[in-house]
């Protein structure tokens, strides 16, 4: 099996499995006042401190959630509602065109149900939001923006956004800035306080921790309207019994991932370079998408002319090679990627794409396995692509 879908989820690190398993055998609700509760609470708080240290935040700024999607929803809706509560005119949300659906969809929902004015920030051919784009959006009306949300690095094409510059502009206009850094944490240097971000999303299972646990890092004084009401466990912003085993695994994973980040990023970018080069040699009409230099170290994303990504994926799957079309799956039917469309690709090209993503377990053998079968598979998918009835 050649697993090249680490951007979807990556194997749990041994440290995470150990921490998670140890805690699974224990009893205790972190909110309980007795000894068992105190013990569980200690695990959670120590994990919070580890995570804060790994991400350059203060422990109090870590809000545990059920994962990236919840963190993004909390940030987008929570910041929008809080901004409007203070100033009813703050209705505009600035969001990049290449966000994950976990950001885009709550933003669109606010547009449909909560009077938000959604402004999608266009991107260049590499998928970047240019600083002047954001500035222009503010200049239209400097006073009505509730929040800005731009991801740190794109999950599909790997392009890294100029986050520090964008944050600076938003702050000139005294507007809060959220960034979905799910793909960035553990791969790039992400330091919450240094970038000046107001809120940042990341999640356990992309850094070698368990699925179903994540965090929103939110400045201590940031006003957030809660989505989940109940016991108020997390700063009264997020309710629900804390999942101590998952949090322990999450903390162990991110601590390990961040401490080994530079070495791993260097190793992955060599694999990336190797695969990109070999794909281009063996499938000359394949087109690399995203920023060729400034991209996630483990991300390789190509369009294969005349092929359907789904057909490529199926044929590779049959050969034991696991990758992704990178496209969101709406109602079970693959849609052309909104990211590629936003980057100026046509629908056919958008449907012809594959993402290979490397992670901790990847080696050059994985690259060789792909290259061994890819040219024949592309040829076959091209033939299949011609059979479909065209508009």
């Amino acid at each position, binding site marked *: 099996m050649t697993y090249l879908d680490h951007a979807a989820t990556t194997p749990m690190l041994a440290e995470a499995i150990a921490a998670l398993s140890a805690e699974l055998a224990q009893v205790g609700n972190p909110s309980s006042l007795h000894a068992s509760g105190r013990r569980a609470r200690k695990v959670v708080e120590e994990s919070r401190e580890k995570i804060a240290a790994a991400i350059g935040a203060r422990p109090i700024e870590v809000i545990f959630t059920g994962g990236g999607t919840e963190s993004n929803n909390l940030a987008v809706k929570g910041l929008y509602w809080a901004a409007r509560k203070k100033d009813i005119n703050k209705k505009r949300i600035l969001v990049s065109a290449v966000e994950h659906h976990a950001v885009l969809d709550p933003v669109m929902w606010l547009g449909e149900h909560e009077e938000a004015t959604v402004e999608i920030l266009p991107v260049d051919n590499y998928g970047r939001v240019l600083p002047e784009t954001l500035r222009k959006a503010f200049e239209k009306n400097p006073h009505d923006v509730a929040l800005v949300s731009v991801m740190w690095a794109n999950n599909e094409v790997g392009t890294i956004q100029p986050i520090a510059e964008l944050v600076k502009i938003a702050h000139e206009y005294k507007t809060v800035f959220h960034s979905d850094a799910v793909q960035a944490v553990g791969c790039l240097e992400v330091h919450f306080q240094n970038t000046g971000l107001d809120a940042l999303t990341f999640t356990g299972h992309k850094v070698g921790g368990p699925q179903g646990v994540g965090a929103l890092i939110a400045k201590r004084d940031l006003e957030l309207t809660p989505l989940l009401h109940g016991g108020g466990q997390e700063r009264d912003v997020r309710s629900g019994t804390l999942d101590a085993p998952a949090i322990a695994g999450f903390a162990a994973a991110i601590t390990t991932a961040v401490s080994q980040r530079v070495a791993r990023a260097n190793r992955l970018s060599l694999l990336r370079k190797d695969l990109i080069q070999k794909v281009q040699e063996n499938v000359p009409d394949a087109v690399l998408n995203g920023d060729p230099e400034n991209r996630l170290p483990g991300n390789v994303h190509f369009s294969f002319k005349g092929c359907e990504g*789904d*057909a490529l994926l*199926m*044929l590779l*799957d*049959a050969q034991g090679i696991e990758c992704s079309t990178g496209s969101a799956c*709406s*109602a*079970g*039917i*693959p849609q052309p990627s909104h990211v590629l469309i936003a980057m100026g690709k046509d629908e056919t090209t958008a449907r012809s794409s594959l993402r290979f993503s490397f992670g901790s377990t990847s080696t050059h053998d994985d690259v060789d396995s792909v290259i061994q079968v890819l040219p024949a598979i592309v040829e*076959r*998918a091209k*033939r*299949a692509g*011609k*059979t*479909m*009835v065209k*508009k």
Partner: protein
Amino acid sequence: MTKKVVAAMSGGVDSSVAAARLVDQGYDVVGVHLALAKVKGHAGGKGCCTLDDARDARRVADRLGIAFYIWDVSEEFQQEVIENFISEYAQGRTPNPCVRCNEKIKFQAVLERSLALGFDAVATGHYAQIFETPNGPTLHRAIDNKKDQSYVLSVLNQEQLSHTILPLGNSVKPDIRKEAEERGLITAAKPDSHDICFIPDGDTAGFLHNKLGQEPGKIVDVETGEELGKHDGVFEFTIGQRKGLHLEKPRPDRSPRYVVGTDTKSKTVMVGLASMLRVDVVTATNLIWCGPTPDSQFDCTAQVRAHSNALKAKAFHKDGNLTVEFLEPLNGLAPGQTITLYDNTRVIGSGTVVTTSRS
């Protein structure tokens, strides 16, 4: 070498068992659910292509331990089946969308794609049988007469049949349900689908009005020319129809009247007595032979609906045109319907009805 087969899995009981049998028979099976319509959100629960159906199909594939994918053929389906359905009705014909779907989607777009991707065949849960003969494959009725679906498959030529597997043709439906249950398939108790899948509420007239708008016209007595009522679109009416005419005047003898013809140009619906529906000469085009090309003239039985009886007839064909003379007249046959010719249980071929008359 092990044959690689795409099992088209609708999420119903039949295609589930079909896939299971293929796995048992040692084929290298991949389950494919065809997304025929882009549905967002919740499922209607009826017909094909709902989210629930895709999920059920996926769960069956899990159970069988086979790979499973969803293929989006919604554009092809929209163009080749739904648009065709609407335009056929607009031109006063009565199409069979299931026949069309088999001809253009399942055994054309999907089959061609499968072959190009390196598969050897497509399998479905249709009730019909394919037999290999020295003259190539032939299509036969299923052993379950009630479920037999050879009519809707009578648009497959030998090339298509040679890449088609129908694992259920030698079984009866109750056994299939039992088998699904014994195999622990989640679809064992799912009800059969009946309606046109893209019109889940069964309101074809409403669907057509939605697409074609209001096209009011007159309902006239075909013998006297007398106006007997009004209608909102000739596409609401099919030859042989009795219900929903809302005629203002009954006949003096109270005998029922039926739609005997429509004219899309003058937007007129003609009604007349049952006897006027009786026809025994039918011409057809779009001929497809499901086996070797027959002689230019032959005896056969002919069937004009999915589940009507096949009636004795003589068939003549020349240059792609077919004439069928029934020994006894039959009632209410509309242009656009598929006429399928049988030699006992074997499907000889089919055509699309162009004209009907009384000799």
